[in-house]
Structures are given as structure tokens and as C-alpha cells.
């Protein structure tokens, strides 16, 4: 090796030492930042959601969620949600050629629906406050537990629930099996009390003829799941869930029209009645795929069935598309299709024996729904993000059973359109 080459080689070492020194000193100057990452931090997500149904309910929902990851790796999440609902929702009665007057739940007042209109109860105004805490912790390297407690409160409804879930990783952490349960106890104390099943809606100031002032229900949920890393880019998850509710499952504000057997004209309005038990099962499949170009595909499907004979299919598809400078757009399409409950009907028929159970609540009817939307995200600072989500929801119902008389002239299951706008801001401190 020549002398000049040796000098070059020695130079390399000295220059390398200098470069390394610069790297480490610069890193040291960023030491405060790194020090911070040793301390637990809060990841905060805030959002406000506006939900607006055309001519019906609208809601404003602020959400606050804070997550702290401790040095041990355990995670605490605290969440608070407020829902403010206003507007009108269908009371269950069918439209009619003449005006219809309904007594408000309190029994002290009434509202009148114009001829030909779908009867909507505009008493609907409520504020719900929900708070919850969830704690994730580990038992050893491969077993994770998560437990939570949730409360929600509104004017006439309270709910408390607890949940625990255990997950165990196998197969080099490529497979995760999880099992969980949740138990919820709900109580309702509606304005005016609990109506007796199939009794007539009283006239204003009449005796309400109620069975009591409050009711309750208990719900037990069980979940079994498996998450599998298929390859470096694909993650698949399959869950089975079981849910059993016992107690008061009727909606005390919903009625059915007792229709004249030939004309379909309302002869009376009767309070609905549902079974006091419901058992649901669902299978959920989800796949997340990361494309080479950084795009993420997220597809899921859920099939649900229950002992009220409701079955539903939900298909959900999201595509996350990264743009320049950390922006992204995420289009979203969701399809939902539901078969009605066995006791769902648009109305009762005068002169016929009353069924054991009946409801005209459109949520238990047969319908399809599509949601189209997109979310746009903009990075804010080092760890922050602002996002806006816009979605359109359109529900198309179908009439179950044969319309009676003049009912033929009306849409017994009117379509529903809703707009959803959500502003989100997340940050770390």
C-alpha cells in the first residue's frame, strides 16, 4: 500500500469520526425530544360530528378521547362523548288521508300530523353524556388484557357496562387469539311511565293507565376472535360475537296504527310490544392490505342473525390514499341490508286477534342502506392531524305485508337520507 493511499485511508477515518460526532451531537441537541419520549404521553383525539337526517333527527356529537401509554407499555384510554339530539322520528303510525293527532308521552299535550304525512314525533330532544375508561395491560410477553368501564346518562335512560378481553399471541406473534365479554345494565324511566302492551294511546289529560315508571334490561356480550398476519402486507381478522339481552326491549314511545280492515283508516293507536329476550350472533371478517405504494385497503363484512329473525349483511370498504406532504384521502363505501323482525308490521288490523308481539319501528323493518363518503387528513405539526369526513347515508325500506285500503296510497316505509360531517383534530402532549 502506497503512502498516499495510507493518508487517504487515515483521512477517511478522521472524516468519518467528524461525521459521526456531528450526528451524535445533533442527536444530543434533540435529546430533549428523545427524553420526552421516555416519559408517558397523552395522545388526544377530539372530534365533532354533525348528523342530520332530512326532515327528521339531527345530532351534534363532540367526542374527546385521551390515551396514555405508560413506560410499562400499559395503556389507559379515557373517552367522553356528548350527544345532543333534536328533531322528529317516526312514531310508528301509518300516514292517513286526514290529519292525525297524537298524545305526547307525558299525556299533557298533543301534536297533529297533516293529512298524508308520515307521523313523526317531534318530542325528540335529548342530551346523552357517556364516559368510559379502558385499561390495556400485559401478563407476560404474549398475553394482553383489556378491561373497561362505561357509563352513559340521558334524561330518561342510564347505562353502565363493564368489559374484559384477553388476547394471546402465538406463532411468533403472527397469530392472536382473543376472547372477551361485556355486561351492560340499562334502565329506562320514560316521561309518563311505561305503557302497557297494546293499550290505546290515551287522550290528553286522560288516565295514562301505565304499568309502572321504569324498566330495565341486561345485556351480555361474548366475543371470540382470531387475528392472523398473512404476510408482511396483509392482516386478517375473524370474530364471532354472541349477545343476549333480557328485560324490557320495547320502545315505550312507539305505537302501531289499528287500521280499519277495509279502508285502512286509523281506529286507534296501540303501544307496541316486543319479546323480553333477544339473542344475536354475528360473524365478522376484516382484511387490511398494505399496497406497495403505501395505499391501504380495508375491507370488512359482517353477517348478523338473531332470534327475532332479523338477519343483516354489512359490507364496508375503505381505501387510504396517501397524497403529498402527509395528506391523505380515504374514500369509504358501506352497504347494509336487513331482513325484518318476525313481529314487524306496518299496522295492526281492527277486528283481528292481537298478535303476541308487534312493532312498526322502521329500525326493525326490512331495508337496505348505502353510505358514501370520504375522509381527508392533513398533518399538523410533528404528531398532530386535522381531518374532515363527509358522508351521505341513504336508506331504502320496503313495505312488509299487504297495505290495507287507502294505505296503498302511501309509502309505509319512507326513505331516509342523512348527511354526516365530522371534524377531527388529534395531537400529542
Amino acid at each position, binding site marked *: *500500500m502506497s503512502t498516499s493511499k*495510507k493518508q487517504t*485511508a*487515515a483521512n*477517511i*477515518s478522521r*472524516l*468519518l*469520526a467528524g*461525521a*459521526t*460526532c*456531528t*450526528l*451524535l451531537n*445533533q*442527536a*444530543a441537541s*434533540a*435529546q430533549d*425530544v*428523545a*427524553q420526552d*419520549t*421516555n416519559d408517558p404521553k397523552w*395522545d388526544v383525539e377530539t372530534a365533532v360530528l354533525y348528523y342530520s337526517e332530512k326532515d327528521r333527527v339531527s345530532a351534534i356529537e363532540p367526542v374527546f378521547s385521551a*390515551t396514555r*401509554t405508560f*413506560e*410499562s*407499555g*400499559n*395503556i389507559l*384510554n379515557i373517552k367522553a362523548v356528548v350527544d345532543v339530539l333534536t328533531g322528529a322520528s317516526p312514531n310508528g303510525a301509518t300516514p292517513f288521508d286526514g290529519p292525525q293527532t297524537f298524545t305526547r308521552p307525558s299525556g299533557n299535550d298533543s301534536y297533529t300530523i297533516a293529512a298524508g304525512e308520515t307521523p313523526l314525533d317531534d318530542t325528540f330532544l335529548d342530551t346523552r353524556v357517556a364516559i368510559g375508561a*379502558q385499561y*390495556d*395491560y*400485559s401478563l*407476560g*410477553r404474549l398475553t*394482553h388484557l*383489556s378491561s373497561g368501564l362505561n357509563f352513559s346518562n340521558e334524561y330518561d335512560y342510564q347505562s353502565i357496562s363493564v368489559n374484559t*378481553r384477553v*388476547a394471546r399471541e402465538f406463532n411468533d*406473534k403472527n397469530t*392472536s387469539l*382473543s376472547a372477551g365479554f361485556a355486561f351492560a345494565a340499562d334502565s329506562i324511566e320514560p316521561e309518563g311511565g311505561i305503557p302497557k302492551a297494546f293499550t290505546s294511546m290515551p287522550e290528553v289529560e286522560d288516565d295514562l293507565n301505565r304499568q309502572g315508571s321504569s324498566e330495565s334490561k341486561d345485556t351480555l356480550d361474548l366475543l371470540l376472535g382470531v387475528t392472523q398476519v398473512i404476510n*408482511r402486507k396483509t392482516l386478517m381478522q375473524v370474530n364471532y360475537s354472541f349477545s343476549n339481552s333480557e328485560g324490557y326491549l320495547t320502545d315505550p314511545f312507539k305505537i302501531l296504527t289499528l287500521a280499519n280492515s277495509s279502508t285502512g283508516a286509523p281506529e286507534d293507536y296501540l303501544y307496541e310490544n316486543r319479546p323480553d329476550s333477544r339473542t344475536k350472533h354475528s360473524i365478522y371478517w376484516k382484511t387490511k392490505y*398494505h*399496497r*406497495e*405504494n*403505501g395505499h*391501504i385497503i380495508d375491507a370488512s363484512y359482517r353477517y348478523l342473525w338473531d332470534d327475532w329473525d332479523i338477519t343483516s349483511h354489512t359490507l364496508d370498504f375503505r381505501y387510504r390514499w*396517501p397524497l*403529498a*406532504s*402527509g395528506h391523505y384521502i380515504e374514500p369509504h363505501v358501506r352497504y347494509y341490508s336487513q331482513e325484518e323482525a318476525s313481529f314487524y308490521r306496518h299496522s295492526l288490523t281492527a277486528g283481528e286477534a292481537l298478535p303476541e308481539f308487534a312493532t312498526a319501528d322502521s329500525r326493525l323493518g326490512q331495508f337496505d342502506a348505502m353510505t358514501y363518503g370520504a375522509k381527508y387528513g392533513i398533518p399538523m405539526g*410533528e404528531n398532530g392531524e386535522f381531518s374532515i369526513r363527509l358522508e351521505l347515508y341513504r336508506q331504502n325500506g320496503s313495505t312488509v305485508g299487504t297495505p290495507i285500503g287507502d294505505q296503498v296510497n302511501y309509502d309505509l316505509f319512507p326513505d331516509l337520507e342523512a348527511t354526516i360531517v365530522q371534524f377531527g383534530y388529534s395531537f400529542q402532549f
Partner: protein
Amino acid sequence: MPSTAHPNRPLILTKRDLVWVGRFDAMASPCEVLMAVESKETAELFLRIAAHETWRIEQKFSRYRDDGIIPRINNSGGATIPVDAETAHLIDYAYQCHQLSDGLFDVTSGILRKTWPFRPNSTIPTNKEVDALLPFIGLDKATWNNPDFRLPSDMQIDFGGIGKEYAVDRTLALLTAKTNSPIMVNYGGDITCNRSPSPNTPWRVGIENSKEMIELTSGSLATSGSTHRYLMYDGKRYSHVLNPKTGWPIENAPLSVTVKGDSCTHAGMLATFAMLKGKDAESFLEAQNVFYRILR
């Protein structure tokens, strides 16, 4: 909701004579921090600081974490990606090392792993397979205009050749900001220390596959290469150190190179450079006036 997939990775603290020994796993290596501190509480705190900094670096520069900066660059499809200050320093450093090694140290050479898996019983690739990858290697093909980094489509970078030594130095820097007590950081054989545990006893470090013990009173020691990673094919030994210019293993590369340096990152890069020199590894290090050991 937070992901439940957050592993609670274990930290193990024991005491050997007067020194607390903290252990954890990171970067596919056993990691060890030796601390000549008084209280168990201090040792626990230091161990947590060490592990969290190391895991932070591991996660931040992981090639696999979808939200990490490396996949963002590698999946950018040729788009310009703005990077944070720490990543910028490492990119600066990668450029300097690329230049100082005359292009032999190249953070974009990782895609050669596709054809050179270095698994037992794997065969060697064809010239054609190797040549097909060469257009996608070369840091000089990227555009670096701090903080904007643009990597051409289908190229990849990773800091695998720097990350562990960098974590060793970062850990010692964080701990010596808190104490003057003797600390030694040893992540899978890449080592640094601030001073001897006591005036007359240096830290004693073994060299891989050698009976020799090296005494360390300050500074760092790093090893490049592993006696276990090579490929035998048709009676010829292929080193796992690849030449990014040819796509083929460096001829006559040592089995391993251990170098003593000011910092672990410095020592590690010198050792890597020496490996890349092949048969000239010894003469290269000889010219540096550094302590070294080479196994062939």
C-alpha cells in the same frame, strides 16, 4: 381505541457484584446495560430510559412498521417525503458514509437481500438476477434537500447498518446526562462506556469466537460481520457483505471485524468499511491508528 398489540416487553434487572445489570431485547439482539449505581431505583430508571430509547429508535426506523418513516419513503412511489430532524441527521450521515467509502457503504443496497437470502442451503443467484437489481441501488440516485428526501420508485433504504450502534451511543448519552457513575452499554456486542467501574478495574469484553478479552476504560467497541452468516456454494464461501456496485459478495471479506472507536457508531462504521475492503481490511485499519481485531 388504542391497539392491544402493544407488547409489554420485559426488562430484567439483576445485580452482579457492585454493578446492576439491566437486560432487554431489541433490534434482534440481547441488550445489556451495566450500571455502577447505588440504588435499585436508579438502576431501574436508567434501564427504562435505555430500553425506551432503544425501542423508540427500533420502531422509528423499522422497515416494517407501516406508519414509520422508512416504509413511507420506500412506498413513496418516487414522491418527495419531508422528514423529521433526527431522520435528516441520519440521512446526512448516510451520504457522508457513502462518499467516504467511495460508494461501498450504501443504505439503498438492502434490496439485494431479495436475491441473496443467506439462508442455509440457498443457492447463489444468476448474474442476470443480480444485474436486474443494480439500477435500483445507489444513494446518489436519490435527491436530498433537507428536509425533503426523494427516493426513486422501486428503490429502498434502511438504516440497518447504523441503527444499533446509534442506539448504543444515544443510550449512553441519555444516561450520562443524568449521572457520572460508570455505565456500559452492550447491545449484541456493540459496546460503549463512559468510564471504568472503578479506577483499577476496566470493563472486560470478550470478542466473538475468540478467547481474547479486551479491556475497555472508555470509548466504544463494535463488530461487523458474523462468523455464522455466510453461504457455501460449490465449495466456495460467499460473504454476507455485498458490494452495492456489483451486487456480489465482497471477495475475501473477513469473517468479522472488531474496532475500537470514539463512539460506537464510529467504531461500527469503521468495521463495516474494513469488511467492504475485503482482502485490504487489515491494511485499511492499520492506517487508521485504531485498535482492531480481524477474524478470517
